[in-house]
């Protein structure tokens, strides 16, 4: 199980929580699990999210492995500059 920190404006889509726990071994599984459990998150996931894993930001990279102790933070997908 991994604990994922969501950003505040996703709270309503996740039953009022900004920390949720799902079963996932990598980024892809994480997104699938979040989408399945909280369908309200799907529009944002489809618009694009990044994953901060132990402080490092991954923009896409589905198969990035997530350890059970990892700090996992969801962030909007960023581009431009």
């Amino acid at each position, binding site marked *: 199980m991994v604990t994922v*920190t969501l*950003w*505040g*404006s*996703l*709270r*309503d*889509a996740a039953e009022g929580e900004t920390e949720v726990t799902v079963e996932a071994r990598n980024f892809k599984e994480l997104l699938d699990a979040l989408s399945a459990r909280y369908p*309200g998150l799907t*529009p*944002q996931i489809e*618009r694009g999210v990044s994953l*901060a894993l*132990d*402080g*490092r*930001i*991954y*923009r*896409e*990279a589905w198969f*990035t492995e997530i350890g059970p102790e990892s*700090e996992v*933070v*969801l*962030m*909007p*997908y*960023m*581009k*431009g*500059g």
Partner: protein
Amino acid sequence: MNKITREKGQFKVVGTRVKRPDGIDKVTGRAQYGADLVVPGMLTGAILRSPHAHATINSIDTSEALALPGVKAVVTRADFAALDDDEMIDIADNCLARDKVLYHGHAVAGVAAKDAQTARKALKLIKVDYTPLPHVTDVDAAMKPGAPVVQSGRQEENVQPEHSENVTGYCEFGHGDVEAGFAKADHIIERDFKTAAAHQGYIEPHACLASMTNDGKADLWCCTQGQFNVRSLCSAILDMEASQLRVTASEIGGGFGGKTTVFIEPVALALSRKSGRPVKIVMTRDEVFRATGPTVSSSSTVKIGMTKDGRITAAHAKFRYQGGAFPCATYSFGAQAAFAAYDLEAVKSEGWNALTNRPKEAAYRAPGAPMAIYAVESVVDELTQHFGLDPLEVRLKNAARENTKAAYGPTFDQIGLVATLEAAQKHPHYSAPLGENQGRGVSCGFWFNFGGNTCVTMNLNDDGTVGITEGNPDIGGSRASISMMAAEELGIPYSDVRTIIADTSSLGHNDVTDGSRVTFAVGLATIEAARDAIRKMCGRVAKIWGIDEDAVIWEDGYAKPSGPNAGDFEPMSIKEIAAISSNTGGPIAGHYEVNADGAGVSFGVHLADVEVDPETGYTQVIRYTVFQDAGKAVHPDYVEGQMQGGAVQGIGWALNEEYIYGEDGVLQNAGFLDYRVPVASDLPEIDTVILEIPNPGHPYGVRGVGETSIVPPLAALSNAVSRAAGVRLHELPMSPPKILKAITDRG
């Protein structure tokens, strides 16, 4: 996780100041930019633009224009493909308006003619029947219920219902109990801020040359920050297969984020397809200002509580951005970046985006961050003034450091903010005396930095020199820095490496040159491609020597036996290996393809001294120093150049640059005369101090350096003006009339 493989003291090429490979072409006028290519049979394209800020297009009659001798094609939005992706539809609609024109200058039709005069005449013959609609250009006005609706149906699911339909997005970041935090404060300051839209102001207007043949193949030459992105967008908009469209990036005369999308390219392709001739389109400066992508303008509210010894107890910010007539996500970057420099127990950062009748924003150096950090750094500074504290001490006391939970979520890795603040504190600038009407301002800055999709090919030439093929336009000297990293890894001289930028048919996809990603990501891929080539070279040598591959190592450009046990062989140079490559298995190349992560955030601190004329409100910047963490400065001159250039763009934004709209929704200053970018005589020397706190995500510790430097000047100058003139402004630009009014109002 730590993958740094080479550290301080181990570099031979990286960190030196070699000469750029594009130097001679650029000082002799030989370098070819977007508008410089000429091909036989070429037509001149021109674009008809909306005279209205907002209007319905009832009909477009192109018949008279087409009848004009010398006119070879006219295109409208109907000549683009049917699209289903919202973002792609927006891009196409921005290139040529569909049912409505959404801002003054919005493209409506394109013409290709035998020469510029004929094309201009033809534009006047296109009859567009418009029904003007009410318009809105200010972000606060656009958010209010009842505001003219720019586009309906574009709201994301979490936007609060109290706003107008123009509000497309909402976000909230942060952690902790903000109300409890404010309760602990000795003083709380809450202020409203406004910043004007600024333009990247690249000196080269957008230009392209498209040539499509009737078998559906096309070549497109254009000035862009990302030829692969241009291919993706244009092939979708023109309904082409990517393989049939080859995009070549010209030399680029500045971008700063503004050349990360398409404007004229799909129009030129459509005109070429219709006319059967190559078509060149070059924007005028007026068009660049009216109809490319300036940055957002903002309105914000920042509330911060502090104890009397300078500890921030809580912070809450609201950022309202307008990014023009199409949805954009820049507000969320601002809301995330706002408090990055601070280690806070309780923080809440909210953002909204609103549609207005202005051109769609494009990225501009650290998009979204400068205006958010300006507001935050202004309030922090006002609190230090309130308590009579030292501004750098307060920032150090609250500084984010390794293991700080960032306001935008993750926990920071190794970062350079504290070292940068300390360097500023120790610098003679910080303690230099100031004269009458002079003041010193401080601000922190931050940018996330990106990695992204990258591929690099390294070919070993038959004489042992090396060619690097990469896919990102060079906007700041990246060909030099990439060659340097290749030379470093291979252990050969810089002069033995030549890096070229591939067209889209010569290499796999590379993301746009954005997010300060190139030196980091392409550098990383180059080092890995070199390692791939080294492995192959060691393999060849192992065969020659008849020993295991593992027993051959690479050092300083030579394959060597790994130790006495491996055998006694004369080391083989890269030149020797290259010379016999046809005998040992054929050409040798290294490759690397990656979606790079671990870009490593970047912090900077700026010190600005200004003198304000109390009788006119004129502000002169008299001394300026930039401190920034580069991770590892591959080419220190170019790192300094990024720090200086960004600082000066920020200075311009702080003092004089702004998009000025009239009541009629028309941009009033679409030229360099009244869109006032800094000129040489406006500025002092921009002193630089590079810090090197290695980024664990890069083999040499490199961090992106291109963007952070535009962030601090906004607040640094506002804070300096506050101390010089005794008045604090909450609006940018701080043009002289505003400063003089503040001084007069104070009495």
